[in-house]
């Protein structure tokens, strides 16, 4: 097959759309899942930069509190000699977390990779609901505009943390950022929720209804299983968050008082009618946001499984246990939300119950780790950039998973709750885990997205620097946490207990700046390779799953031939064929028995 260009007008006619599409229809309001996926990818990477810069600003303040902050200080706080104000600091970390979680991690997994990969990997020509798909992308921009514009309204951006605990968030007078900024934050999140919900419905329908002939559920790649389970989680958890967000909007705008207790006076202003309970918000919020942490990692786990199997040239170890553990995580994920609230004043007996369920959610994660290591065992490991990122995902996820056990143990949580131990944990899961998985995924599927390879050498430099600086930044935070160092303090060093920790914080900040700088290499490699990277064929990694059967990049409608699936996606090193890979679409040689389903033999 001749290689086709991105957008692939050549295929338009074959699909009977008849009219030639305008530029706007092809690249902006496109209905094509690949274009939408790539739009999601570009946008989320852009937002990643915004979120990252906010994090660096936070790190600056923690390393050198009250010194003039570069770039921001002279522009916003010239009158104070560049020294930022404490409420600006609270806005920085609130917006860092909000943007990273709701605008980077969730949409880059579900939006970018979900969109791009689901139809390709199941052998469909597009999503079930293309218009819904387009809308789900275009709901993200108003959401982001809401978020970022909140920096410019009276009072500034939301300043109550990404968890937005009331009454701080629900009462205007409680914090500067709890004025208009908080309302914009809530509206932004509602829009993100609408976008996620549209995506979720679409993914579930597509995966259930549109699989290619022969693609049974247990022949789906792990990426698709993870996307499917994630979509189910979204569909069940999101309505609760959306309701909670609307309740907080109502509390703020018409003073309904869902979350505001009776007779509260904050900053000498009576806070509405009252009669509510601040803990109610925490229950509702974590009922979504705990499943959401799995929404933020399961797709990356799926992608990593695919990469590890491919570059070990060996079938995935324990395919079905992997599927069951993902499902187990999803199920248990709904009954552990209370472990965020051990110190909240919730009934301590309830805390004990949540502790037990939390302990057991560690189990499926452990099973997955063992299976990944089992996959590497006895293979032929190719140290490509995507493989390095996938391996680092496993390595970092072990740390993130094990540190979770400390928090799950309620008595230990008494000490480490709201300390940097938690910050280290969440970043090991979300950065060392998901973000590294995403980097791997970008290096892995880039040839499919753009028909060109990313540069391997600079990819490895990027990996090396990110890996070193990442661990320098976040591993040390465990030590701070063990010392009791609390989160979200603009200047922790006036406490005697924490005064000696400034040096370590400076080390962490320098590592963080190094990690930020390392991403410039990635950005340069990424942009350069889109235009000038070496061209590649359909299957540069010699992988099995269906997307590699399509042209690179795939044209409109994805496949130039109807894929027919004969086996599971992880048949590497199969004795049935001479090559070390055995694509799902390759018909079995005449006379061979049985088709590998990827299950136990």
């Amino acid at each position, binding site marked *: 097959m001749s290689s086709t260009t991105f957008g692939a007008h050549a295929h338009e006619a074959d699909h009977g759309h008849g009219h030639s599409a305008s530029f706007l229809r092809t690249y902006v309001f496109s209905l094509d899942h690949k274009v939408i996926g790539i739009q999601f990818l570009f946008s989320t990477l852009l937002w990643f930069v915004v979120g990252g810069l906010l994090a660096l600003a936070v790190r600056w303040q923690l390393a050198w509190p009250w010194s003039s902050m570069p770039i921001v200080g002279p522009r916003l706080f010239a009158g104070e000699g560049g020294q930022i104000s404490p409420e600006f600091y609270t806005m920085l970390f609130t917006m860092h977390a909000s943007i990273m979680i709701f605008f980077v991690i969730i949409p880059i997994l579900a939006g970018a990779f979900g969109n791009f990969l689901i139809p390709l990997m199941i052998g469909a020509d597009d999503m079930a609901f293309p218009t819904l798909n387009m809308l789900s992308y275009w709901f993200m921009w108003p959401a982001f505009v809401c978020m970022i514009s909140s920096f410019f309204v009276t009072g500034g951006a939301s300043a109550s943390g990404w968890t937005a605990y009331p009454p701080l968030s629900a009462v205007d007078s409680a914090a500067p950022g709890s004025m208009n900024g908080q309302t914009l934050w809530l509206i932004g999140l509602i829009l993100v929720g609408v976008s996620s919900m549209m995506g979720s419905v679409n993914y579930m329908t597509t995966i259930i209804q549109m699989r290619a002939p022969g693609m049974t559920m247990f022949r789906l790649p792990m990426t698709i299983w993870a996307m499917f389970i994630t979509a189910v989680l979204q569909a069940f958890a999101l309505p609760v968050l959306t309701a909670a967000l609307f309740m907080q909007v109502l509390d703020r705008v018409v003073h309904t008082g869902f979350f505001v207790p009776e007779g509260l006076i904050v900053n000498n202003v009576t806070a509405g009618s009252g009669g509510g309970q601040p803990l109610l918000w925490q229950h509702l919020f974590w009922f979504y946001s705990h499943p959401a942490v799995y929404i933020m990692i399961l797709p990356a786990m799926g992608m990593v499984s695919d990469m590890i199997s491919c570059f070990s040239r060996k079938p995935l170890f324990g395919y079905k246990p992997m599927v069951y553990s993902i499902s187990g995580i999803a199920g248990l994920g709904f009954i552990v939300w209370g472990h965020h609230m051990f*110190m909240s*004043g919730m009934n301590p007996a309830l805390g004990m119950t949540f502790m037990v369920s939390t302990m057991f959610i560690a189990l499926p994660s452990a099973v997955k780790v063992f299976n990944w290591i089992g996959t590497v065992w006895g293979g032929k490991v190719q140290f490509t950039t995507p493989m390095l990122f996938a391996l680092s995902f496993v390595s970092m996820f072990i740390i993130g998973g094990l540190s979770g056990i400390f928090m799950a143990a309620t008595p230990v949580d008494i000490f480490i709750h709201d300390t940097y131990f938690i910050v280290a944990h969440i970043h090991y899961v979300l950065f060392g885990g998901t973000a590294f998985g995403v980097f791997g995924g970008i290096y892995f599927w880039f040839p499919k997205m753009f028909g060109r390879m990313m540069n391997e050498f600079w990819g490895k430099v990027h990996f090396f620097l990110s890996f070193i600086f990442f661990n320098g930044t976040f591993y040390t935070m465990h030590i701070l946490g063990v010392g009791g160092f609390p989160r979200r303090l603009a200047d922790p060093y*006036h406490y005697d207990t924490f005064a000696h920790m400034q040096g370590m914080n400076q080390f962490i900040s320098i590592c963080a700046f190094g990690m930020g700088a390392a991403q410039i290499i990635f950005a340069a490699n990424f942009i350069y390779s889109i235009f000038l990277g070496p061209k590649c064929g359909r299957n540069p990694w010699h992988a099995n799953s269906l997307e590699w059967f399509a042209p690179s990049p795939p044209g409109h409608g994805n496949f130039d031939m109807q894929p027919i699936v004969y086996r599971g996606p992880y048949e590497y090193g199969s004795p049935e064929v001479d090559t070390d890979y055995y694509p799902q679409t390759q018909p079995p040689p005449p006379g061979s028995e049985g088709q590998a389903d990827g299950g136990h033999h």
Partner: protein
Amino acid sequence: MGKVWSFLFLLVPVLGVGLFAWAPSNGFWLPRDISKHGWQIDHLFNFILVLTGVVFAATEGLLFWFLWRYDAKTNRTPVKYMHGSHNLEVIWTILPAATLLFIAIYQMNAWADVKMRKPKDMPPTVEVTARQFEWRLRYPGPDGKLGTPDDIHHVNDLHIPVDEEVLVQLESMDVLHDFFLPNLRIKQDAVPGMSIPVWFRATDTGTYDLVCAELCGWGHYKMKGRLTIESRASFDQWLAKMGAEEQATQEPAAAESEDSQ
């Protein structure tokens, strides 16, 4: 190159364990425990640390070894074409499950001591009301009851007697706060509309930090309190002095001399 990358992954457990070994002797560790219940928390922390440390070193070590051993460049043995092992799956499901169940049961007593077994028939030693951004303290006056005109009010400077059960009634006037005593291994959110009991017994005297550990607004970082633990005698003396100061009708003599620089 494969070997080099394998070593990078070996660095993770080596430096990871190394840092945790280095930290305690260099001043980065759990602050000194001066509470009666704290040893249970520290013990549990150390127990989990050792347990997870072993698992951490083993899994990361295994990952390194497999990467090193099965590097495609040097590995001449053919790929093990297998899809998993039922026996292994059962083993590595049941073993962690049993361990986790053990940890879950093992910790219950410590949790119950700190959060569930409230001392009976005991009036609060002090009422702590958090407010943006200070700790307002109210001790019962000579009548031993809170909410009477002889109550003694104070800010940020919490005094408690040593070697005695102390009951703190924790409240908040505005937003969420968190009453964190690192040395006493005590942490509890203060929630407006709720009155939450916190109890502990200090085993040593001295002054320590009282930290606000739940984001409470722009001034969260400056919501600092000081905990002074002292003998019953000097506590009573301090309380009496505070009570007298609060009823002052004339400028105390000490302040007079300070006045004239």
